[in-house]
């Protein structure tokens, strides 16, 4: 965890893509978080839901959005409470805050979208241990205003949602021949391997390689 946070801090400066875009602080944070610090493909964080919840595009998207909401909410909360929480107990406190928000999201999903909740299984509660949620809280929200923190978390969450949806699309397309549940190829021979864990590992590995190949630089990390 400590490692992951350091990596995130270290990777912040000198990103060319950010300089070609509008230069407001919030916007910069957002873009950096979506692309250059993309939690899955560049930071290699939060791998469990990345693979566990992406066998269908809709699952990937739902998992991504759930994570996004939890991240934004907890980052904003942490930022709001940053002056109150004593430094010594900040990590446990952050975890409790995150666990609280994740519980809310989980209960919400169970109440209003039960099939989706069943499909995602324990991967929604597992958002608690997605290191980048805690990472954003520790690295950014603990030093910034709630608004900026929410924007920062939104960036990360969008990047995460994007990656998961992308993975889900490919896996569903090859695995079922459909997209968001709609059959695209008729008479498609399903590639079963894309639905089982092995396919997830291989695909994420390839994605990581491709992303790193086409935009080298930045920090590829991998911590807890």
């Amino acid at each position, binding site marked *: 965890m400590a490692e992951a946070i350091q990596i995130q801090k270290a990777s912040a400066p000198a990103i060319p893509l950010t300089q070609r875009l509008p230069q407001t602080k919030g916007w910069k944070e957002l873009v950096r978080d979506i692309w250059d610090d993309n939690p899955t493909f560049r930071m290699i964080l939060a791998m469990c839901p990345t693979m566990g919840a992406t066998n269908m595009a809709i699952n990937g998207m739902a998992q991504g959005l759930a994570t996004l909401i939890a991240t934004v909410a907890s980052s904003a909360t942490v930022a709001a409470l940053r002056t109150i929480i004593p430094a010594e107990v900040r990590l*446990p406190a952050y975890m409790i805050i995150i666990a609280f928000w994740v519980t809310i999201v989980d209960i919400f999903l169970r109440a209003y979208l039960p099939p989706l909740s069943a499909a995602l299984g324990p991967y929604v509660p597992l958002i608690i241990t997605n290191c980048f949620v805690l990472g954003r809280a520790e690295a950014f929200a603990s030093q910034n205003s709630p608004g900026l923190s929410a924007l920062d978390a939104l960036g990360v969450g969008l990047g995460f949602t994007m990656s998961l949806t992308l993975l889900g699309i490919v896996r569903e397309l090859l695995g079922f021949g459909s997209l968001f549940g709609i059959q695209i190829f008729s008479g498609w021979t399903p590639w079963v391997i894309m639905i089982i864990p*092995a396919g997830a590992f291989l695909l994420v590995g390839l994605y990581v390689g491709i992303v790193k190949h*086409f935009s080298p630089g930045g920090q590829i990390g*991998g911590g*807890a």
Partner: protein
Amino acid sequence: MDIFLIVLGAILTNNILLTTFLGICPFIGVSGEYASASGMGMAVIFVLTMTLPANWLIKHFILDPLGVSYLSLIVYIVTIAFLVQVVEMFMKRFLPALYSSLGIFLPLITVNCAILGGVLFAIATWNLGFMESVAYGFGGGVGWALAIILMAAIRERLRFAPIPEGLKGPGIALIIAGLMAMSFVGFSGMINIRDFGG
């Protein structure tokens, strides 16, 4: 016999890492060197074997009777963090040799999803009994440790391999994990831990 089957199943058919994707981040991050990988593996075995029964007890004797199971996530994570702290302090005090080899990995484990994930799968999803939970905790830890140790040995052998630049490090590790998962598919259907749940 059931206990033995659960341990075996947790290692082979329901490998916590290769079939349920738990604990991949440290699996990728710490598998670069054999020594640290085996240290991390041992630490996970240790913590998982302890936290699973502890959380089982909390669920069945505190949360369920009080009817506050909606708080379970928060309680689990706090318990895990607390237990890891206790283990760390205990080790530092009484087992300094073990502490020096595992100590640096212990704080990392709190946010290792293998721990919380193991708890959620065993207690919430499959609803295992107490002894079964202990067995699953131990077996899951062993399965995770086995995977990371294999991965470390493989990556040590690939030290000088001309892997494409983009895949070096995490990329190739994920692909290796994919092939490992492919070979573990062979075990599927042998034992299913779900069958032992209530």
